[in-house]
C-alpha cells in the first residue's frame, strides 16, 4: 500500500510539473484579451427583444429543447413524459412522442428532420423516427452507466451522447452499437456541442473542465479550466475557433482554441444564479444565457457587458436555442412554457 501511495505521489508530482509548464506556455502567448481587442467596437446598445409567442402544451418542467435545421420546427422535452415537435411559425404542435421514461434531460433533432433523440435518468438514448405515421422507436442506445445529459446527431446514422457516468460516446445508429468512447473527465458530463465542421466536439462536466475531442479517434485534444463549479452549458462559436461555457459558478467564459485559454469572462456581481443553458446569435455578437434566476440574460460577447434580459418565465430557464437562420431565440423553462423572442 505504501509503495502504491508513493507511486501515485510521483505521478501527481510529474503531473503538477506539466500543469505548471502548460500554464507558463499559455501565459507566454497571452498578450491581449477580448475586451482589449474590442475597445474600438461600437456598442450594441440595450438589446430589447419582444416576446412573440408562448408555446403551451407541456404539463411539467421543460428540461431541453432543440431547433430543427429548417429553423421552423423545434422539439422540446418535459418531465411530463413527452417530446413535442412544434411548428414555431404557427405555434401548432406537429408531433407528440410519448416517452417510456418521464425523467428526460436532453433532446435533439437530427439535421435531416427525420429523427429525434432523447434520454435522461434511464441512462438510455432513444432515437425516434417522427416521419412515420406515428412516432416509432428506431433504436435504444443502452450502455451508459449514468444519466444521459446531452445528445446531438451528426447525421441519421451517428449520434454523440454525454453522460453522468463521465464519458461521452459516438454511436452507430445502423447497428445500435458504440463506435468510440471518450474518457477523460472525472466528473459527470453535463453538455456537449459539435464543431461546425463536425470533426471535433466539446464537452462540459462537473469537474469544472471543458474538453475538446477528436470525433473519430477518441482523443482529448485540449482541456480548458477556470470555472469553479459544474459546467452545465457549452457551445461552439460559429467560426469553430472558440467555445463558450456556462457554469453553476454563475459565470460564462469564452475560450479560444488556438491560444488554448480563456479570453473573456462574463460575470456580474448582481447575478448570483447558476447558468443552465446558452445560445449564440447568428453573428456571435450576443450570448443568450439561461439562469436559475428565471431569466435569460443577454451578453455582448466582445465587450463582456450585460446588454439585455428576457424576463417572463415563472421558474428556472432550463434551455435556450437560436435557430440556424438566427431570426429569434427560444427559451424553455421549469414553468412548463417555451417562449419565442426577437
Amino acid at each position, binding site marked *: 500500500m505504501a509503495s502504491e501511495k508513493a507511486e501515485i505521489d510521483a505521478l501527481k508530482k510529474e503531473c503538477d510539473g506539466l500543469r505548471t509548464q502548460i500554464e507558463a506556455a499559455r501565459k507566454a502567448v497571452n498578450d491581449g484579451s477580448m475586451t482589449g481587442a474590442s475597445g474600438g467596437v461600437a456598442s450594441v446598445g440595450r438589446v430589447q427583444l419582444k416576446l412573440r409567442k408562448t408555446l403551451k402544451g407541456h404539463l411539467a418542467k421543460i428540461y431541453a429543447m432543440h431547433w430543427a435545421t429548417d429553423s421552423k420546427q423545434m422539439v422540446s422535452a418535459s418531465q411530463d413524459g413527452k417530446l413535442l415537435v412544434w411548428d414555431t411559425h404557427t405555434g401548432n404542435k406537429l408531433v407528440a412522442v410519448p416517452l417510456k421514461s418521464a425523467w428526460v434531460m436532453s433532446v435533439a433533432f437530427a439535421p435531416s428532420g427525420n429523427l429525434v433523440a432523447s434520454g435522461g435518468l434511464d441512462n438510455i438514448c432513444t432515437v425516434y423516427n417522427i416521419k412515420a405515421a406515428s412516432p416509432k422507436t428506431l433504436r435504444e442506445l443502452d450502455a451508459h452507466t449514468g444519466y444521459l445529459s446531452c445528445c446531438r446527431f451528426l447525421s441519421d446514422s451517428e449520434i454523440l451522447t454525454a453522460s453522468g457516468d463521465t464519458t461521452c460516446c459516438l454511436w452507430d445508429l445502423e447497428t445500435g452499437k458504440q463506435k468510440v468512447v471518450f474518457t*477523460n473527465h472525472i466528473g459527470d458530463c453535463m453538455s456537449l456541442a459539435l464543431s461546425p465542421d463536425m470533426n471535433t466536439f466539446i464537452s462540459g462536466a462537473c469537474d469544472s473542465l471543458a474538453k475538446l475531442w477528436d470525433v473519430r479517434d477518441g482523443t482529448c485534444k485540449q482541456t480548458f479550466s477556470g470555472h469553479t463549479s459544474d459546467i452545465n452549458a457549452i457551445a461552439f462559436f460559429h467560426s469553430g475557433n472558440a467555445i463558450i461555457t456556462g457554469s453553476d459558478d454563475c459565470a460564462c467564459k469564452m475560450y479560444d482554441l488556438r491560444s488554448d485559454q480563456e479570453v473573456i469572462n462574463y460575470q456580474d456581481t448582481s447575478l448570483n444564479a447558476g447558468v443552465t443553458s446558452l445560445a449564440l446569435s447568428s453573428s456571435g455578437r450576443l450570448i443568450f444565457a439561461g439562469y436559475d434566476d428565471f431569466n435569460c440574460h443577454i451578453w455582448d460577447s466582445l465587450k463582456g457587458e450585460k446588454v439585455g434580459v428576457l424576463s417572463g418565465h415563472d421558474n428556472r430557464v432550463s434551455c435556450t436555442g437560436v435557430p440556424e437562420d438566427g431570426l429569434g431565440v427560444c427559451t424553455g423553462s421549469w414553468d412548463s412554457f417555451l417562449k419565442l423572442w426577437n
Partner: protein
Amino acid sequence: MPVINVDELTDKDKAVMELNQRKLEVKLERWLTSKCCEEMKDYIQERVEEDTLVKGISEEKNPFKEKGGCIIC
C-alpha cells in the same frame, strides 16, 4: 469498444490518465491571444449587420409574429 467504467478506475489509474493527457497537451502550439481576439472581433463584426437579434426585424418579415388582432398573455 468496451465501456470504461470510471467507478472502477483506481486512484492510480486516474493519476496515470491525467498524466498522459497533460503529456499530450504540453506539446500544443499556441497562438497569440491578441491575434485570436482580433480575428474573432473581425469575424463577428463582418456579420453583425445581418444579425436579426442585434439589428431587429420588421413586422412583415417576422416569422414568429402573432397573426390576428390581439395577444392575450
